[in-house]
Structure formats: C-alpha cells, structure tokens
C-alpha cells in the first residue's frame, strides 16, 4: 500500500478545517439541520431563512455566525440607534436628562426650597415616570436587535451573558447604567475571551452597584492604602455640640453617616465564585468568599448616586492586608492587582471551565447535555485560555448538537417565544417598549430578574400554569396584529388567502412549525376536531372576558414595561390569521 504523501495529508487537513466538514454522519437531514441551527444559534427562522441557510451551507453559515464582523449589519444598527436614541448615551447624560426624583429633591433642599407646592409634587411624580422610562429604550433595543440583527449568534450570546451576569434594573440607580453595561461590558466580549468579559463586568457600574461591591470597603481593623476611611467625620470634636442646637442639620449628618459604607460587603464576591465562575460546587470556602471580597475592596463607582460615569479604584478604601485566595497568597501592600489576580485565578480554574462549558451546552444542546460533550467543551476552554468562540464552536459543531435527541429538545424561554414568533411572521422591529412588555407578561421581564442567579436555562421552570396561558394569549394577539410591526395578514399576503384551507395548513405547518405537525395537529387545524378524543373540546371554552387590566402596580422600583402591555380584548381571528394564531400558540411552537 502506498503511504500518502505529507503534502497530501496537509492538503486534506486544511480542506477539512477550511470547510469544517462534519467528520461523522449527522442524524439530522439537511432541512432539519438548517431549522436546528436557526432555532439554536438564532432566535428562530424568518420567512426564507431555511432556504438561505441551505444555500450557504449549514457549516459555512455556522462559521459566519461565529465571526459576526464578517456579516454586514449596518442598516439594522442605524435603525436601532434612531429608534432608541439612548443606546448611544453615557450614564451621566441619561442621568442628566431624566434624573431620579430624590436628586431633584436634594437639589431643591440645597437651594433652600423647602416648601413644596402641589405643582412641585406633580413635577416630581412625572420626573419619577421619566426616570423609569429610561429602561424602556434599553429593553426595546434588546428585543429589536434580537429580532432584526443579521448577527444572530452574537445576539444569542449577548442574551446568554446578560443572563449569566444578570443585573436588576429596579435597584436604585442601576437603570442608568444598563446601556453602558450591555454596550461596553457584554457585547464586545460575547464571543471573545472570558477573562476580558469577566473583567469588564467586574468593573461595570451596573454590576458594582447591583451586587454592592461599590460600597464594600476595608473593615476598620484593616490597613488601607490611604489612611482610615471616615476618620475625618469621626475626628472632629465639638461638631456634635454645635449640631445639637440645630436638629435639622444633626438629622442631615446622621442621614449622611447612615449612607456611608461600613465595611466589607461579600455579595459580589460570593456570586462571582458561585454563579459567575467556579459554580456552586466549584471547590471554594466561605473564607475564600471573604478573601475575594477583601481583594476587591476599593473597586467602586464614586458618585454613582449623582450619575457619575465610570469605574474607579480607590486606594483609600482598599484592604491592603495579605490575603489567601483558593490556596494562593496575595502579598500585603498592593492595590488593584489584588482583584485582577483573583480574576486571573478564577478564569484559569478547572471548575470555571466546566461550569461555563456546561451552561453553554445546556443553552445550545439540551437540558441534560451529554457529559462527553461538556468534557470536550471544558477542555477547549482550558486549552484556549477561555476563548468563548472556540468553546461555542466545539459545542455547535459537535455530533451531539446535531443528534436526533437534541432536535427540538429545548423549551423556549418567554424572550425566545416572543422574538421567534415575530421573526416567523417577518415582523419589522417594534420601536416602542410594547413588545418588551409582552416578554414581561410571559414571565421574563428584561433586566427584571431580582436575584443574581438569572433566569432558568432549562424548560420546566417556564411551564407553569399562568405562563403557558400567557404564551397562548400572546400568540393570539400577535396573529391578530396586536404586536407592533407584526401581522399575520402581511405575512400571508393575498396569494395564501386565496388558496384552499388544506394548502394554507401546509404552508403554516411548513413555515411556522418547521414542517413538524402530527396528523392529529393537522386535523385540529383543519376541522377543530381532535381525532384522539371522543368528542371535541369546543364546549369547554366560552370566553366572557371583559377585563383588560394587565397594567399593574409593579412595586415601587421595578421596571414598568408591562404596564401598557396587556393583550387587549379578545381578538376575532378568522382564516389564515386564525391558523397563524393556532400555530404560534401550539405546543410545537413552544420548542426550539
């Protein structure tokens, strides 16, 4: 037998790597592969997308999506910047344009304006509304981008990381820093290096404020790099005596003191280890949490309450003592390097590789991803020093990804339901926060998760009784043209309306359900009868709804996007629109 020449081997390998040819037979047909990648690496197919992916080739399409800069998207970016102008602004500009009411009050007080009239109160209330509306642009832009961007995998990754590094819009001034968070900390690194992403998040005002690291300072027993913090206020004798004669001023001083940071705050350190990097069983102790918190003291946002822009390291607040983190010694007397070293340690830890690999496999493959796949993805993470693009590539080009078991195995999150339905209808982006409000009504308000663990990546949590009802009602509302930019009639066009019911059903099943519908489903669409039951369920549902009060008291500091977003009175659905409503509300559409 002739040995193959070295040149031949080289050529063969380079061809394989260029074309990223599958090395094993995939279980899915070409059509299924195209649908699968559009459901997992994108927010569902738009009309014609399946054909487009097939024309490009599934593997080449994946390679393009992994390299977002190779895909033109200028028109969409312009559209979004025009529709949601605040996505270009800095936090301080946003703060200036719509300051929180307590800042207005403070200014008034400082100017000696203590008697507030009824008109002042009304002004303050409208200021409060505007301050809340700051969130509207941010969440509206999130939906619009996910809907329209040609760089779909990038949007999926932004969604993934925003959830992994979740922050809550309703906490104090966090809302002013959301634009900055998504634009500066998340998006640039969504397919970049994990260390860069982690570092950008650790220094983002949104995260520093959300998990309180901004107010974590060296305990009073610890040395700092610039004297003891707060000594000035404590040191002045006689002040108390003078203040005793001026009770208002004394109250103000007490107020000031009560707001002053009082020592170590472990919140960010704990979540950094448990949620962001190592994982809950990642092999760290409570002492590690404390030591990490000490390392990160002084990482703060001075003046955040006044809308100041950025991260700063404040040596005076930093605990300069020696620390031991995960068995590594950090010498005394250092500054910001303590925190940077901790982030390095965490990124290089095998638990982090496994934690991130597993979570990505759950997002892309299934709720119970095969452990060999997780192992390989974790190995890629370690080998590439946390190159997210390569970890994702390992997962989405794998045999397991294209397996029969993974096909349609994921339940869509509410965000995915809404965006994929609108994409299926070929909708244009909504330039109002209304669609984002629909996402909230389905149970997943954007930037609205209070606890730091983020929304679930697995299916069961999304399928409670109220949530599935709202999914169905959203589908009916979308089919009835109640969601801006989307319309079943526009989707169908005149040509479909003239076809026979059978042909219409064929098209709806193919275009909206990826060709997947049992004969029972087809018959229900056609006749309304369920062949598996002895009688139709039609007598069960008589709608007598009159109420339309989805607008709700969301609590003082919660995003108010859902307020205007009820699904309205019951729509009348006939013909193709009814078929569309049924398809989008069907069990099949809840999967991806």
């Amino acid at each position, binding site marked *: 037998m002739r040995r193959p020449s070295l040149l031949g081997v080289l050529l063969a390998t380079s061809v394989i790597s260029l074309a990223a040819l599958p090395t094993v037979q995939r279980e899915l047909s070409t059509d299924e592969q195209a649908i699968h990648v559009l459901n997992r690496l994108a927010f569902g197919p738009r009309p014609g997308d399946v054909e487009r992916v097939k024309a490009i080739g599934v593997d080449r399409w994946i390679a393009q999506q992994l390299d977002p800069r190779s895909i033109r998207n200028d028109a969409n970016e312009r559209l979004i910047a025009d529709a949601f102008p605040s996505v270009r602004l800095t936090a301080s500009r946003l703060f200036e344009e719509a300051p929180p009411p307590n800042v207005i009050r403070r200014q008034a007080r400082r100017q000696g304006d203590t008697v507030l009239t009824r008109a002042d109160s009304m002004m303050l209330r409208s200021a409060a509304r505007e301050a809340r509306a700051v969130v509207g642009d941010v969440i509206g832009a999130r939906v619009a981008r996910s809907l329209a961007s040609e760089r779909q995998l990038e949007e999926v990754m932004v969604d993934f990381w925003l959830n992994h590094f979740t922050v809550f819009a309703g*906490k104090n001034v966090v809302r002013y820093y959301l634009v900055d968070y998504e634009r500066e900390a998340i998006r640039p690194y969504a397919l970049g290096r994990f260390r860069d992403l982690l570092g950008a998040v650790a220094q983002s005002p949104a995260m520093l404020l959300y998990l309180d690291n901004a107010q974590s300072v060296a305990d009073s027993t610890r040395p700092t790099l610039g004297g003891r913090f707060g000594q000035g206020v404590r040191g002045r004798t006689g002040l108390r005596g003078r203040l005793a004669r001026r009770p208002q001023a004394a*109250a103000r001083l007490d107020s000031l003191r009560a707001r002053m940071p009082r020592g170590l705050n472990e919140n960010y350190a704990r979540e950094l280890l448990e*949620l962001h990097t190592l994982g809950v069983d990642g092999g760290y102790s409570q002492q590690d949490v404390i030591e990490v918190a000490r390392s990160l003291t002084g990482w703060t946002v001075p003046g955040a309450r006044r809308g100041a822009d950025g991260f700063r390291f404040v040596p005076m607040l930093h605990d300069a003592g020696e620390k031991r983190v995960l068995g590594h010694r950090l010498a005394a007397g250092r500054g910001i390097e303590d925190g940077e070293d901790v982030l390095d340690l965490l990124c290089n830890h095998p638990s982090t590789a496994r934690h991130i690999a597993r979570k990505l496999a759950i997002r892309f493959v299934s709720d119970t991803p095969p452990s060999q796949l997780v192992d390989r993805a974790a190995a890629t993470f370690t080998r590439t020093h946390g190159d997210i693009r390569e970890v994702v590539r390992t997962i989405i080009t794998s045999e397991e990804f294209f397996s029969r078991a993974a096909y349609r195995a994921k339940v869509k999150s509410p965000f995915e339901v809404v965006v994929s339905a609108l994409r299926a209808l070929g909708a244009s982006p909504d330039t109002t926060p209304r669609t984002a409000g629909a996402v909230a009504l389905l149970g997943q308000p954007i930037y609205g998760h209070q606890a730091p663990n983020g929304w679930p990546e697995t299916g069961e949590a999304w399928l409670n009784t109220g949530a599935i009802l709202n999914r169905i009602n959203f589908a009916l509302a979308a089919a009835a043209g109640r969601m801006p930019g989307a319309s079943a009639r526009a989707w169908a066009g005149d040509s479909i309306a003239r076809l026979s019911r059978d042909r219409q059903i064929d098209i709806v099943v193919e275009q909206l359900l990826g060709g997947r519908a049992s004969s029972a489903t087809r018959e229900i669409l056609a006749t309304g009868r369920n062949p598996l039951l002895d009688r139709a369920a039609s007598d069960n549902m008589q709608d007598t709804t009159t109420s339309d009060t989805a607008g709700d008291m969301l609590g003082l500091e919660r995003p108010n996007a859902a307020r205007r977003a009820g699904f309205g009175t*019951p729509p009348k659905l006939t013909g193709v629109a*009814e078929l569309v409503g049924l398809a989008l509300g069907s069990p099949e559409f809840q999967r991806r």
Partner: protein
Amino acid sequence: MGTGRRAFVKSGALALVTMGLSPSFLRRTAFAMDLPKTKRGKVLICLFQRGAADALNMIVPHGEQAYYAMRPTIAIPRPQRGNDQTSVDLDGFFGLHPSLAPLERLYRDGVLAPIHAVGSPSATRSHFDAQDYMESGTPDLKSTPDGWLNRYLATHGTCEACAANAVESPFRAVAMTSQMPRIFEGPAATVAMASLGEFTVRADGDAAARLEALYRTGEADLVHGAGREMFEAVKLLKTANPQRYQPDNGADYPRSQFGQRLREIAQLIKSDVGLEIAFADVGGWDTHVNQGGATGQLAARLRDFAQSIAALVTDLGPRMSDVLIMSMTEFGRMASQNGNGGTDHGHAGAMFVLGGSVKGGRVLGKWPGLQREQLFEGRDLALTTDFRSVFAEVVSKHLGGEKLDKIFPGFAAHRLDWLGVL
C-alpha cells in the same frame, strides 16, 4: 370529562415512569385526571405595602412627647373624642391614623393585632434590597433563589385528601399581580394574575377550543402536560363564576386596584378552588415629600388600605375564622420629618395581623422609644422584632408548617421569641 381521556392520561403518566422522567412531572400529568373542589382549609393573605409605609404615622405613639417634637407639621394629633382629625386611641399610648378608623372595630373585637418596631435586621435603606430580603426571607443574603412563601409551599403538602389523590390545586398559591412576585418564586407551582377575568384564553370563536385540542393530542411531554393543566385550571376558575360575584354582608370594596384585588381574593376563597396562600401588593408609600398629617397624601393611601381590608373581612364573614391577613412593608421611615414635609427611609416598621384566631386587641412588639439614644443610628425607630419571627409563628400556628429551618434558613426560630400573635 369522558373516561376515555382519563384512562389515556393515566396510561400516559405510567409510560413516563417507565421512561424515567421526574416525579414532579408525573404529578403534573396526573393532575389533569381530576380536579375536585378541595376541602376548606386555612388561608393566609399576605399584603405588601411597597415603598416603605410610615409606621409612626400608621400606629401613632401619641404617648411619646418626642414624636411630636420630631414631626412638627406631620404628626397625628393626640386622640380627642369626637374629632376625626386626631388619632384613634387603642390603649392609651398608641393610636391608629384616623384613616385607619375602619380597622378600629376589628381591634376592639380582638381579631386585629398591630405590631410595632418590626422588620428586617438588615441595615439597608434601599427599597430594592429590603423588599428582596423581606420576600426571600433571608436578610443580607442576596443569593437565595426562592421566596419564603414558596419554600413553605414546597416543604408542606396540601390537605390530606388532596395529597392522597396526588392532586394539587392550581390555585393553591395565587398572586394578584401581573408578574410573579419574588416571595412566590421557587420550585412549587404558583400563579400570578392581574385579575381573575384575565385568566382565560383570549380569543373569540373556536380558536380557544382548537388550541385546547392541540394540547390534548395525547403527546405526554412537558409542554403538552403543562398546557392540559392550564386548560383545566381555566375551566375550574370558570365554574367559580367570577363574573357574577356579589360580596356578602353588604361589603363595599373601594374601586381602587387594591380594593378590587382583595375582592377577587375573597371570590377565590369562597369558590373553594383550593386557595391556601394569596398575595397582593399596593404602592404609594414612599412619602418623601408633602406626606401630610391627619389628611393629605399618606392619609389617602391609608384610607384605601383600611377600607379594602375592612371590606374583605366583612365579605368573608364567618370564613375569617380560617383566614389570616398579614401586612408587611420593607422598612419604616425616619423618625424626624425632613425638609419637604415628608419622611426619608428609616429602619423598623409596622405590620398588621388580622384573623379569627389572632390574639389581637393589643399592640404587639416591644416599644424601643423615640429618645435620640433609643433610635437606630440616632435617627430611626429601632428594631425589636425580626419579621421572620412573625412569619414563622404564622406559618407554624396558622398553616401548620413544620420545617421552619427550611423556610427561614439561618434563622433560629425560637418559639420563646414569638410574640404570641396567635
């Protein structure tokens, strides 16, 4: 329901067992077999005053000289018989804000217990953090993923009869809010709805029936199972006939959103759909500016609050022997008024506990005093009762909850510290 479908669902559930799917899903599927009206059980109604209600003007310490010194323009005057602009005396030291007068009768009847100087031990003055802690039940611990009411639901089975059939009412825990509140989040099934009328498939004609059929094609996966469960729940609620509800005993609910939501909670209770925990919230308590005294902004909020609760109690009548209403707010407000005729964020707050089995007719909680050295950080009402000790006592004595260490982890729920609310 025809027996054919029941048999089918049952065999579907069995098939799942052989496939090795999770028992929780088996319960969900089995649920579709039967939805009997549940036996009357104990009901807990939690009301959250979001925004930090001013405890000192709700339950007025009119016996404290310092109260009047610190609040020159917004203090509620000492009680004067026949003057409805003064506090309503309770015990010679405390009085109710005049807007809370509808609750006075309940106090005299011994079923209402105001609790003073109660709240979270956390020193935070952030609404977000404090609400988060009150709902997670773990002050100063951010990572708790679930709410304490959900942990109760998850650790405590429903009534014995229901448990025997492995049937759980979909309306065991209902939040009358458009989004699921933190306090309800967690593994146990809970429902959030802005109104009863909204809990329906919103379509004219036969689209709703066809959708139901799509979820009843016999596939036994998670999505179909959850869908069937939902359609059962919608039907169950329809049989409770919410559209034609008439309150009993001439109960007159305010037209406000809060009043209407309490009215719907009464409907749910009386329709015996298995409600055990209800939740509603009401805002408008963040009174930094022009708070008012006996009249004004806070007075208006309190009037709506008291009239709504009084109507609920009237409506429920004898059912109140099984019902307990508990109000909470994330913290109290500063003892001194501020420069804008309002009050800034403070520390300890106040709660109301109301129900047939409440040992009321007295103001509970140790009173810490309002002298400067008695105040928390020299400015706020000090805390003498951890809110978890009230929650724990209610969960234990009213609902029969046993696993208090699971519901309030890290909190030593010593029965000796309980106030004796029940």
